[in-house]
């Protein structure tokens, strides 16, 4: 099916991205690679996905993937949020240093 080719192509790119990230973060690289490989498996063998879905108590394989995707999205969003907060801390420190460099001193200070 065409959709399987497209999805597997996309997941292969995702796997490649995961491998490239290995130098930056081994944990992130492993997570992306695992999700990509699992995704390819689910796309290639949808009947196995349905079996797995029944095993864990979900009606359809597609629903199982949707739920998994939801959980992954939440984790990724929180990770991004924490990264933004860290960036904000850097910006704060930078702005503070600039302010401290140029005080307008009153008489007597």
């Amino acid at each position: 099916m065409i959709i399987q080719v497209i999805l597997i192509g996309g997941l292969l790119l995702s796997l490649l991205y995961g491998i490239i990230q290995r130098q930056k973060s081994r944990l992130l690289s492993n997570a992306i690679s695992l999700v990509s490989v699992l995704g390819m498996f689910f796309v290639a063998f949808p009947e196995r996905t349905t079996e797995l879905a029944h095993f864990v108590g979900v009606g359809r394989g597609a629903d199982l993937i949707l739920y998994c995707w939801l959980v992954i999205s939440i984790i990724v969003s929180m990770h991004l949020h924490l990264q933004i907060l860290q960036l904000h801390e850097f910006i704060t420190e930078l702005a503070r240093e600039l302010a401290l460099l140029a005080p307008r001193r009153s008489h007597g200070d």
Partner: protein
Amino acid sequence: MIPAFNENDAIGDVVIELRRLYRNIIVVDDRSSDDTGATAFRAGATVLRHPINLGQGAALQTGIRYALSRGAEYIVTFDADGQHRADDIRVLIETQVKTGADVVLGSRFLGHAKDIPWLRRMVLRLAVLFTRLGSGVKLTDAHNGLRLLSRGAAERIRIRQNRMAHASEIIDQISALRLTAAEAPVTIVYTDYSLRKGQRLGNAVNILADLFIARLKK
């Protein structure tokens, strides 16, 4: 030390009143879009200006860093909107001398809160309860901008909450760093201006969200 954002209407009088009693007044202008910084400087304050708006917590930390670099032994934080009285600083100092506490926090509930709206009173009481549960520090007023830090405390406390959650963060750090704290009765004057400029009650939700995220990061 006064963190200020768009307080041009009040900051001049606040600085002049403080200058009557104290020499070193620092205003941290948090990138106001009005003339807050210039007005404060004309009134006699040393002014530091953030290049971008960061929030009151960030402005406090900047002011503390500057005061420490100038050799301050005690740092008093003071709101820019005119709700505090300069005379109350003496009460903070007397309390510090009497108790030897690392930090002295102003309390409107030990002192006088003039014309405090009932809803605000209720939210502040809830904030006290929340702070007590979170940090274990027993206070009567958790969100009062008038406080005195000894040099030792100012060197150890690090405000990372840029926005309004810094008040709770300071109390958390007092507990975590095992600093001693005392409260002193102070007067808060609620005027139309200070109520308009002060925290909106909806901010309580933002503060809780900031504190929750900070816990996640630990």
